[in-house]
């Protein structure tokens, strides 16, 4: 039982990060019906920028507690990523807003490659270690262990997600976003500034991606210019699993994918008597994704969207 609990905790930590990144995909899709493939790379940039700041601070020997150093890193990464998200939308997507849907998809892939290579040129090809500024403490819960860093990841993601749900459902900006998602033309006629709403969506999504990036690099202890690719892929799958375009769906999808992966990797070997090993972990996760999509093509919480007239 303690093993099962441990696997669920492992999954929740992984899932929280997926969920945070998935929100960025789902928000943009909800409003523009565009899959922003560069989103994973924004996460990577967030990790890289924060790491640069943290390394500089830790190396300069300033007398700051580790948490404050990391926080400074996060607070630098967020505006950088927000700016990046804004610029990407402005340069690569806005001019193509009325182009066929495939065109912005291609520029998205292009931007993703540009960002990867830019990061490779700036920060180099090697793995960059995260300085050991955070004191790791372990806690035992019913035989399973959880570290303070893992708790922080779960709590921080939860806070960010709750904040986002509040923003979308309770504020003026949120209402404008929902209106734009339903029908950009009509929202525009009602006085909503579509361009600034879309920009805001990218900015918020990128801010969340920055947080996720910092978490990943602090948790795994490294960052690399290629790290955004797989993370983006998994988060995108999570968004689809939950129902792309649906915020709660993205969170649920992220957490589910994390837990499924974890349980899959942990038990698949024992369940099949060693016939399928833990290298089938991704197969297992994506098999669940396919299964869900077969029975609910719009994802777990996705609504059946009637074609716009």
């Amino acid at each position: 039982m303690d093993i099962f609990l441990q696997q669920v905790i492992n999954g929740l930590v992984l899932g929280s990060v997926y969920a945070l990144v998935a929100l960025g995909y789902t928000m943009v899709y909800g409003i523009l019906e565009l899959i922003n493939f560069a989103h994973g790379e924004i996460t990577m940039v967030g990790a890289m920028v924060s790491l640069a700041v943290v390394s500089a601070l830790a190396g300069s020997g300033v007398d700051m507690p580790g948490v404050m150093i990391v926080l400074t890193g996060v607070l630098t990464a967020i505006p950088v990523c927000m700016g990046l998200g804004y610029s990407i939308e402005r340069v690569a997507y806005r001019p193509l807003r009325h182009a066929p849907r495939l065109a912005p998809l291609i520029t998205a892939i292009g931007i993703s490659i540009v960002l990867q290579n830019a990061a490779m040129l700036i920060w180099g090809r090697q793995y960059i270690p995260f300085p050991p500024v955070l004191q790791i403490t372990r806690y035992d819960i019913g035989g399973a262990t959880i570290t303070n860093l893992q708790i922080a990841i779960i709590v921080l993601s939860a806070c960010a997600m709750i904040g986002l749900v509040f923003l979308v459902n309770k504020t003026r900006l949120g209402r404008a976003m929902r209106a734009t998602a339903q029908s950009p033309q009509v929202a525009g006629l009602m006085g909503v500034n579509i361009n600034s709403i879309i920009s805001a969506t990218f900015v918020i999504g990128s801010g969340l991606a920055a947080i996720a990036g910092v978490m990943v690099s602090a948790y795994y202890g490294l960052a690399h210019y290629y790290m955004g690719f797989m993370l983006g892929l998994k988060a995108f799958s999570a968004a689809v699993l939950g129902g792309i375009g649906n915020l709660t769906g993205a969170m649920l999808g992220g957490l589910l994918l994390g837990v499924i992966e974890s349980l899959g990797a942990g038990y698949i070997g024992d369940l099949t008597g060693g016939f399928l090993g833990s290298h089938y972990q991704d197969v297992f996760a994506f098999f669940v994704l396919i299964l869900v999509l077969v029975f609910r093509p719009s994802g777990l919480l996705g609504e059946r969207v009637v074609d716009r007239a």
Partner: protein
Amino acid sequence: MKQIRPLIIALGCALALGCGKKEEAAKTEAAPGAGGAAAGAEELVKIGSVAPLTGPQASLGKDNENGAQLAFDEANAQGIMLGGKKAKFEIISEDDQADPRTGTVVAQKLVDSKVKGVIGHLNSGTTIPASKIYADNNIPQISPSATAIPYTAQGYKTAFRVMTNDEQQGAVLGNYAATALGAKKIAIIDDRSAYGQGLADQVATAAKAAGADVVAREYTSDKATDFTAILTSIKSKKPDLIFFGGMFPQGAPMVKQMKGLGLKAKFLGGDGVQTADFLSIAGTDGEGVIASSPGVPVSSMPGGQDFVTKYTAKYGEIQLYAPYAYDAAWAMINAMKAANSSDPAVYMPELAKVNFTGVTGQISFDAKGDVQGGAVTMYQVKDGKWQVLETVKK
């Protein structure tokens, strides 16, 4: 996502082609000038160098290229005469992205640009499929770092390596775990690459032969960063020791996650783990980790000190295999010198007979093309450094 891969590959190819053209253009520009200086008595000898220069293992790839470059620069400075002409070695560097398919594409490209020999590839997974292409075209290939057994077991006359192979290394590691480290219950993880899998299988066999029990066999990939699930599953089997067959980008986070999960088993790795990057990523969690490296440590290599000075002056810190790439390059140069020709058909028999003291040790090949007398050195992390435990011969 399915659409992205071919696109990236296509783009990669386009880029590679673009670079190739540029190189050629540069060559035609340089040729008249060089010809004028040496009065036409110079022979351009093109040598291919292949390693992943992009992607997760890019730092290791660049290291190999630098090692080979250093050797050929020295050879150029020495002014080696081949068939009455001064040889001018030029490296054509290719990026195989550690991907077997890309590996064969760039191998074919090197064949087409008529290289006289190849130093590479870095990974066993790319070296093996590419070796067929070189063999079909009779181009000698020396891998500085591929350790998988099948590479030299295919019967190709063109395949050589200067690195101790997995059979030698795995046997030493498995035996070491069970005897010197006294492990009774061993869990084995590999990254499913040709290298990781081959090494892990050899370790499992040797450990069982030495009386230990393999209680868990888990797998990951060479792009994964999260291992908590498999480590948790391993924890329930209570092993004394975990062996990981794979590279440091997985090994270091794995060690950190072991600490996070309160898993107290010893951690043993192969040469993919025994790197400087492992130390910086794993930090204090890396203390006590034991890993092997084929061959002898740079510090006790016959030409180690000298090499470190030369290399760091030019390229900075040595990552891992640069001394081997350097020796591989010199094996090729020495064979050409002995044959007095850069023609692969002429110097290949000399390559099989080569016998010289390289940076890493005595370099001579057995009938299969493996380096003879493969030694393995065990290291342990103490105070944030790899400290030599002992050198073990098979």
